[in-house]
């Protein structure tokens, strides 16, 4: 098995890393405090071509493969300390661009993808409901067909990018009798009558990524807004989750490496009892474990990328990757705070924010418990 990167991939990763370090870390502490999205950073990412990565050239993208996408996201995770900006990028790319690319009609692709690739419009998806979280397919929102139009009704919550999105992929039941097999996806534009975005929700972490509730009140959309066939909602959702669980958590690995480098430097510089604290095994072993988790996380993500690059499904592997990396990121962040001691607890040292930002990783894209359910089901349990 060959894990080596091509010279082009190495250079690309280096260039993204340099860009992220230089361009995406403006006033992060302050914006985290005020929950402010970095539009300037978003536009700079678009200029570099980040949002265009997975989109083919014919739709205004650069058509990179999944390995290159993951490398870019890993580099962004290392260089950019604004995890909220990265989270919004992920929502835009994996839960809106990829579904349109995979399931969209040619008209839908032409309408949305070039502008999404250029960062001119922002996308996201709306699946979760007040009563449908881990049991995602138990949603209650409906899409009633009337002639050549659908009437959408229901409530969505925890919708990433909703306050800044120009288009959301909304999931609703077109056939209540079929349950999960009766779910369909709809591309709903901002400003559509009956499509109401609530005020931004305040969160523990990822504060610079706006989140809100969305209400659908007799929201009428033409049939052309349906993504894929009626009942294809679960297929769309599964496909986007595989991408999200792979690429989003590449950024986590980048963040974990940056965090570890910072810890190592601190452990060398910080002296207690007459020597660097890194000389104490109680400290150094923590960093050895942090390094081990990063290495194992990279390995499983490489496998996911390899499978998807071959056009194979990676449902089990992406669940394992998501579970392992999200939980490792929280543990590494706890260790980083502990290694930095009181300084790690202080906002200005930018150690504690990583912890707050990573906690959400155990919840979104399917909780840790749901990932374990998926893995257990593959064991025949």
């Amino acid at each position, binding site marked *: 098995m060959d894990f080596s990167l091509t010279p082009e991939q190495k250079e690309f990763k280096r260039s993204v890393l340099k860009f992220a370090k230089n361009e995406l870390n403006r006033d992060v502490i302050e914006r985290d405090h005020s929950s402010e999205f970095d539009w300037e950073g978003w536009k700079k990412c678009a200029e570099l071509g980040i949002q265009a990565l997975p989109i083919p050239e014919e739709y205004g993208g650069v058509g990179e493969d999944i390995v290159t996408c993951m490398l870019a996201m890993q580099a962004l995770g290392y260089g950019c300390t604004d995890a909220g900006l990265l989270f919004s990028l992920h929502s835009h790319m994996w839960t809106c661009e990829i579904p349109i690319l*995979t*399931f969209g009609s040619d008209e839908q692709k032409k309408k949305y993808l070039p502008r999404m690739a250029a960062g001119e419009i922002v996308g996201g998806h709306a699946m979760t409901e007040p009563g449908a979280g881990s049991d995602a*397919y138990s949603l209650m929102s409906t899409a009633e067909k009337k002639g050549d139009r659908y009437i959408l009704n229901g409530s969505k919550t925890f919708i990433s990018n909703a306050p800044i999105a120009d288009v959301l992929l909304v999931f609703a039941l077109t056939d209540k*009798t*079929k*349950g*999960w*097999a*009766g779910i369909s996806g709809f591309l709903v534009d901002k400003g559509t009558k009956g499509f109401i975005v609530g005020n931004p929700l305040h969160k523990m972490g990822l504060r610079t990524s706006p989140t809100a509730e969305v209400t659908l009140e007799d929201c009428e959309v033409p049939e052309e807004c349906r993504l*894929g*066939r009626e*009942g*294809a909602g*679960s*297929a769309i959702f*599964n*496909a986007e989750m595989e991408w999200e669980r792979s690429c989003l958590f590449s950024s986590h690995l980048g963040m974990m490496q940056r965090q570890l480098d910072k810890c190592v430097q601190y452990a060398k510089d910080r002296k207690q009892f007459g020597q660097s604290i890194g000389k104490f095994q109680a400290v150094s072993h923590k960093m050895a474990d942090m390094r081990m988790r990063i290495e194992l996380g990279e390995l499983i993500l490489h496998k996911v990328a390899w499978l998807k690059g071959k*056009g*194979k*499904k990676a*449902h*089990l592997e992406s669940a394992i990757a998501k579970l392992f990396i999200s939980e490792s990121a929280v543990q590494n962040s706890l260790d980083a705070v502990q290694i930095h001691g009181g300084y790690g607890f202080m906002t200005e040292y930018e150690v504690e924010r990583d912890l707050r930002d990573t906690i959400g990783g155990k919840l979104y894209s399917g909780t840790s418990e749901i990932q374990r359910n*998926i893995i257990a*089901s*593959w064991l*025949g349990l």
Partner: protein
Amino acid sequence: MAVADTIKTYITTELAPDLDASKLANDQSLLTTGVLDSLRIVKLIAFLDDEFGVEVTDDEFDPDNFETIDAIAKLVEEKKG
């Protein structure tokens, strides 16, 4: 063994072992009866790849293609070409 029979055997032994194979007709809905849920379909797709060398693409991962054993067998036959 015919494609439909192989699929039926897998469903009734691996995915829904409580199901009586003799009572499962090839044209019976697997979705409305709860024999297949979204997770079982993912496992079934992996089986189709292993058994028949058939790779189901994301846009073919559609409930209509998994409504009945006949529908699944048709998908496999078409893809085997």
